[in-house]
């Protein structure tokens, strides 16, 4: 059992190394790719929105950095069990190690994006708030959210191989219909306010946006909704995994 846990670490490390093996900058791409992506996206959105570049970029990135982690990790985890046959058809290894390894590999990307965000705060001379000290906890909550969602998706994907485009569409809708992408003030009117109230992604995003952009502590409601979402996803993922894992072998 002890060595199986070492497998989890080694496999995560290999996933990170394999991603850019053979590329001219090698492992540096793990840092450069998210940094370049975020900078380009921030510039484009700021130009399209004709808003103050630095202000909008800081707002956007405060939500986009954790969202991108969630999005990328879900996309990587979704087929992790289904494509683990190379190991799981030959050796005894818990299936959940494979989504867990993908999650670990994506965490590197997340940290690189987070460092990019901090670098941009310095570049734009944005004030650093005391509330930013809460960010490690915010990262933990997003990690739990992603673990739960990724586990659910990886189990469902074993049985339904065509769900990837549906999931990608759902993730895109969730991004563009939440405060990750637009400021709450953009949605005026009663319907807009109701939407902001019932959309859990807005509460998840607040865990990063409030300390970084607004310089305030996230509300108890933000933590409650986010932690409750994470608990629901993890419990659902665990229940699906435990009840269906004996069937996985026959679906490879």
């Amino acid at each position: 059992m002890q060595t199986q846990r070492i497998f989890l670490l080694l496999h995560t490390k290999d996933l990170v190394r394999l991603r850019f093996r053979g590329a001219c900058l090698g492992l540096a791409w793990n840092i450069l790719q998210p940094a370049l992506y975020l900078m380009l996206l921030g510039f484009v959105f700021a130009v399209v929105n004709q808003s103050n570049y630095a202000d909008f970029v800081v707002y956007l990135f405060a939500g986009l950095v954790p969202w991108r982690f969630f999005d990328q990790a879900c996309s990587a985890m979704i087929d992790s069990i289904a494509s683990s046959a190379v190991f799981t058809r030959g050796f005894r290894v818990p299936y959940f190690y494979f989504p867990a390894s993908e999650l670990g590999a994506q965490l590197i990307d997340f940290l690189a994006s987070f460092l990019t965000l901090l670098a941009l705060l310095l570049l734009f001379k944005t004030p650093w708030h005391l509330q930013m000290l809460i960010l490690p906890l915010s990262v933990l909550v997003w990690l739990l959210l992603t673990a739960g969602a990724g586990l659910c998706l990886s189990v469902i994907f074993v049985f339904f191989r065509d769900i990837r485009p549906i999931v990608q569409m759902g993730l895109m809708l969730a991004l563009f219909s939440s405060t990750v992408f637009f400021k709450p003030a953009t949605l005026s009117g009663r319907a807009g306010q109701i939407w902001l109230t019932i959309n859990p992604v807005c509460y998840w995003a607040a865990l990063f946006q409030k300390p970084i952009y607004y310089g305030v502590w996230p509300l108890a409601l933000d933590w409650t909704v986010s932690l409750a979402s994470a608990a629901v996803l993890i419990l659902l993922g665990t229940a699906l995994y435990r009840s269906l894992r004996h069937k996985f072998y026959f679906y490879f």
Partner: protein
Amino acid sequence: MTPALELHDVSVWFRDTNLRHRSLKQALVHLFDRRQPAVVAALDRVSLSIGEGQSVGIIGRNGAGKSTLLRVLGQIIIPNRGRLVAHRRVVPLLSLGVGFHPEMTGRENCYLVGTLLGFPPALTTARLPSIAEFAEMGEFLDTPVKNYSSGMYARLAFSLVTEVEPEVLLLDEILSVGDEFFQRKSQERLQQLMRRGVTTVIVSHNLDYLVSQCDRLIWLDQGKLVADGAVAEVARAYRDCLGHSDRAVAAPGS
């Protein structure tokens, strides 16, 4: 005899829709299909005990459940019913193409798969020279496995699993791959392991090989245990049955 592995009333089954449904679209279409999917019993209430140091052969026709049984013993397939008790560390070598990540080098795979076989990286480092030497890898140890020939792959896989000090070794037709020289070499190593008291469970269609190597034979048919006992007896009964069914099959056309 102290048991190394015990199976208690183990059944494995799956619905044949498992083999057809791979998409949400198909599942939705199937909602309106009132036909009940057939249940395929890969293993049907199998109970047995394999003692320490025994070398057991498993025989049976295609689809008899031999490979499923081996995978249950290796804790790769979780049975729908019954339970497996493994008293010893089980090392499976079940098929070529399984166990090694194609994008990773032979060396990286040895470390990775070594951990699945209960070998920590430090021990793999110590054993790597002998693993590579037996497998005759040369400079290819640092080449991605996807570039290996099937012979190289088999040599490395066999070398690794026999080097990690297995207590129970499960083999599924694996000794029939590779060139003749490698087959002879691997059989010699296997015999050394047997002499050292390693429990071996071998699935093969080569009855003569099993008769020469094993001290016990298990005969499966349609997931059920037909016979389990001394090699000579079970092999004779199996041969008689095959001969009988061959005549039965030949009769209508003759």
